[in-house]
């Protein structure tokens, strides 16, 4: 009898603690601090019309025009849009999800969609397959996906397409006919990093490369850009390579393991995805001379950079706001707008020239324009069409 009571008490404790978190009926916690996404929107950097070929688009301020989208207007609708996010374990992803949420909330309030749902995975293909299956079973109208793999999900995504669901992949895109792609020019990032270092150190020097999330397209793209460009500079030595998983924590840990064996490091070429401050911390912890670190557009790195005296480097990175952008693209497709299969986003770049523009960037934020629907249509969709 005693055991029975005890069992029920323990079970109810767990049940209550679980239910305590199950707040609202909508899947995303709507009271997310908006600080993450209220980035310096007015100072949104790049013009989205740049295509994959422009390698050194300097950051410049531009206005986000509110009008100029022609006669296309969103209609009120009963759509349900789902976000399938492969991995949630770093700040970039978190900001991306927040941007999606904000866009979706706005659309929901305005009546353009009935509801939205967010599912986050653990980085594995299997969990994302489960997410897609779940969306198919729920009968969503569109899936916006940041994928764990370029091809491994194809059979599941095909099922979604067969069920009539619109699929828009972004950031880590999917290579499948019928799926819309919003990609970044990853190789350009790698190229730009190498070129910057080559210029600064005269084509020579000792470097450490930090990789990103294994298997994801960004990492593969950036790394191939790096290796291609390195062929031009045979005197640049890559001493070591660590896998930072686009996380400052992991990057710091991995570097701490090996740095003592490399007393001379001129530069660190990062994955530009949230790992840069980890590099800073690692060198700082060991009281080492700070090498030239390619920044990643995070608030932490920018703030640290602002405090340095005469530190010259290049910072670049993808924009988590693409979560919101992808949402609007999906909604536009559902509303019948003519959207091309392949679109390109661009990379904001920061050098000492425009560093001061970002002095209000807070820790935990990435440089990212505020992707309203108007902005998206003008700078992403139409821009891709006009190419």
């Amino acid at each position, binding site marked *: 009898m005693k055991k029975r009571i005890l069992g029920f008490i*323990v079970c109810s404790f767990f049940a209550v603690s*679980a239910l305590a978190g199950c707040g609202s009926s909508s*899947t995303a916690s709507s009271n997310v601090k908006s600080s993450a996404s209220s980035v310096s929107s007015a100072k949104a950097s790049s013009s989205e019309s740049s295509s994959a070929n422009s390698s050194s688009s300097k950051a410049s301020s531009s206005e986000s025009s509110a009008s100029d989208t022609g006669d296309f207007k969103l209609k009120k609708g009963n759509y349900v849009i789902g976000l399938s996010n492969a991995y949630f374990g770093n700040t970039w992803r978190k900001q991306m999800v927040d941007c999606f949420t904000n866009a979706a909330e706005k659309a929901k309030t305005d009546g353009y969609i009935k509801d939205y*749902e967010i599912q*986050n995975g653990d980085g594995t293909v299997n969990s994302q397959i489960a997410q897609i299956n779940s969306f198919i079973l729920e009968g969503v109208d569109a899936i916006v996906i940041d994928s764990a793999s370029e*091809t491994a999900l194809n059979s*599941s995504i095909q*099922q979604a397409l067969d069920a009539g669901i619109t699929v828009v992949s972004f950031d880590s895109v999917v290579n499948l006919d019928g799926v819309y792609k919003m990609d970044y020019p990853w190789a350009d990032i790698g190229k730009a990093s190498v070129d910057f270092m080559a210029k600064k150190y005269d084509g020579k020097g000792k470097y450490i490369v930090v990789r990103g999330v294994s298997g994801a397209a960004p990492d593969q793209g950036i790394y191939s850009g790096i290796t291609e460009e390195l062929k031009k500079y045979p005197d640049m030595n890559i001493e070591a390579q660590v896998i930072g998983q686009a996380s400052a924590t992991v990057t710091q840990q991995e570097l701490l393991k090996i740095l003592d064996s490399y007393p001379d490091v001129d530069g660190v070429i990062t994955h530009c995805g949230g790992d840069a401050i980890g590099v800073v911390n690692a060198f700082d912890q060991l009281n080492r001379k700070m090498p030239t670190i390619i920044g990643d557009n995070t608030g932490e790195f920018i703030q640290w950079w602002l405090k340095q005296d005469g530190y010259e480097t290049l910072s670049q990175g993808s924009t988590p706001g693409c979560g919101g952008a992808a949402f609007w693209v999906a909604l536009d497709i559902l509303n019948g707008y003519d959207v091309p299969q392949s679109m390109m986003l661009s990379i904001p770049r920061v050098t000492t020239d425009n560093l001061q523009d970002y002095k209000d960037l807070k820790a935990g934020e990435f440089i990212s324009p505020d992707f309203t629907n108007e902005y998206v249509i003008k700078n992403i969709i139409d821009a891709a069409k006009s190419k």
Partner: protein
Amino acid sequence: MENNKCFIEAKDILKIYGPTIAVNHLDITINKGEVLALVGGNGAGKSTITKILSGVINCDSGSITIDGEAIDTNKYSTADARKKGIFVVHQELSLCKNLTVYENFYVEQYQQFYKSHNWRKTAKELAKKALDNVFPGNTIDVNAGLNTLTIAQQQMVEIARATSTPDLKMLVLDEPTSSLPTEETNQLQEYIKKTAANGIAYVYISHRLKEIMYLADRVFIMQNGSKKHECLISETNEQDMVERMGSGIGSQNKKLEFNTPALNEKVSIKMDNYSSKSLKNISAQMYGGEIICLTGLEGNGQLEFIQEIFYKARKRNKNGLEINGKVAYVAGDRKKDGNFPLWSIKDNTIISNLANSLLFKPLNTKNVNDLVNRWNGRLKTKCNSTDESIMSLSGGNQQKVLIARAMAVDADIIILDDPTRGVDVETKLELYEVFHEAAENGKLIIWRTSDDAELEYCTRLFVMTRGTIGAEFEHGKYEHSDILKVAFENQEKKDLKKALEKKAKQPKLYLFALITTIILYTICGILSPTVLSKRGVELLAVGYAPFIFCALSQTFIIGLGHIDLSVGAFMGLVNVVTATILDHNTAFGIFVLIVLLAAYSLMGLFIYWRNVPPIIVTLGMSFVWTGIAYNLQDMPGGHVPEWMVNLFNFKNPVLNGILIWLIICIIASILIYRSKYGTALRGYGNNETAMKNSGWSKAKAYFMIYFIAGCFAMMGGFAQSGITGASDVNASSTYTMLTVAAVIIGGGYFSGGVVTHFGSVCGAISLTMVSILLGLLKVNTDFTATVQGLVLIIILSIRLIKKGEKANE
């Protein structure tokens, strides 16, 4: 005796255990067609001599001739004995509780089944026939799981199994009727008489003198390892036997100065009509200064008596039991209840003191050394230093340490649980003096003994029969035969009305998992009918297929009593191999896969060979599998050959490819476990010793289990390859612990060989349906893990409650 009638002739058998002479130059003859009753008090040597004759242990010297052939007494094993037709039904049952009745028959007599096609039918008939032969009219269902039978029924199964052995020449029955009701006892006796007339030799060990009078042809009375008396049954009767057993006991004892002790009323135990599960209406008063002995035939409640006093002493007194004074317990079964084998003498001595002090109080080394040295000195523990390991001491000295432990804690009441078993005479005498001195110091000693000679040293003794105090005697005011009379009487009375009642029907193991799965599916189906459609089922199946394959694999391993931490990593490795090597070179790829499978099986062999904890071996191997995979492919990607994708994930109007493979594998795993060898493997999960004795190879069993598990894990890897067309080492690392959860939810236990594949599948499906359900309920899917954890806890709690209810029946 006539020629040719003699089956076993044993001469001058000697067996010494340390200081104890268990069998003392004994001559014994066993004849064909004769029932020999082996009688004697506790510790007379009956079990030992039968173990020697049946090859369980080897004697130190002497000669044994079986059926005219002299045997090598140094190499004689149970396998040899069985070949000669000698079988034993021990008191500790050697059945596999997780198998059914007829499966237990099969496992023991498998040689008969080589040619049979429908072995289950044959086994069932065999079992039924055997049971009906010995116990006509029995109601035992041969299809019942052994753990659903009562002890009495289990005993019947064990007896029937032994008696039905083909080529049986001699059967030793050790207390066969102790749990049998009257009718069944009679039936057994009839059977023995009948078969003895056909030439089978029986050795019948029992305390039931009435039965012996009815059944036996000859009586062999043993005492202290020697033959006390031997005669035909016609030459004796119950009274005579009792007297012969009782005489001469204690003649070796040194006479101790015996003063009637002064009673120390401050220390006492008062029992007023105390009853519990095993004890009935006990009323007694015991005071400090007394030495109270508990005697009587083993199994009549003595152990319960002392253990209940010890455990209840720490709780608030109730139920008519009042204890005044601190209680300490000295274990007699040193291995099971007493020794801390990794520790020194000092640590073993001082532990009770430490246990009693405040949890984090540092111990005072000087005090510790003082106490340890004082008591071990007083007890004259023979050792070079108290820092030696306790396992380096002889049994007697180990016992001294255990007694020192109780003395050091300065308890008022000391419980001795048969402490002189296996202890040499000289030490025994030393111990008796210690007990006396303690009593004189005002302590109450309660002493359960199995050696009737020791009763001399007590002030009072209780003879326990069937859970109650049969009689009470005071020092010097009894004869041994009085004790034995009380001990033996009422043995025949059976209060076993319930013994044969059918236990309540056990729910199937996988019931909870199945219910959970159905509930989850139903709710999901209501929220979204697509779930229940064919497309929905296929969709979900693709999602959880690899997980289910791994769960099947883990089921086999947990069925053996191990845990496999490498199943996820292995699956990932197979996945990688198919997307790399197999893609480039099919033949080499297949070769590599075969090598990997062999390596997996060798894991099992390694565990057997080095006897190392499987959890650590599999943990280490999981790193190895992962490492190999990384070497083959450091980034996710690769390309699975088209033929493999087509093979495993083909689209089919009836059923998706994956689903078909899933069903095939589930059925295969169930069939494997139900096959002949599979049944033996299940038996291994429950009772390795019995299986080994029946002749099944342990090495082979371990190898085969890991081989089978490896196959299913490999299928998981293939499924993963088929579904994704690429590979990722890390994809499957989370599976490992989830498969353990799936097996447990499915009704499995970590030991005892109690697992079901169907349950594991249900468990796996339940766990994956949780996230689907949450999605459909519009609850944040981040809660998936929590709900999975809750499901685990709730199901296990319910299982515990059910178990508790059962135990209270």
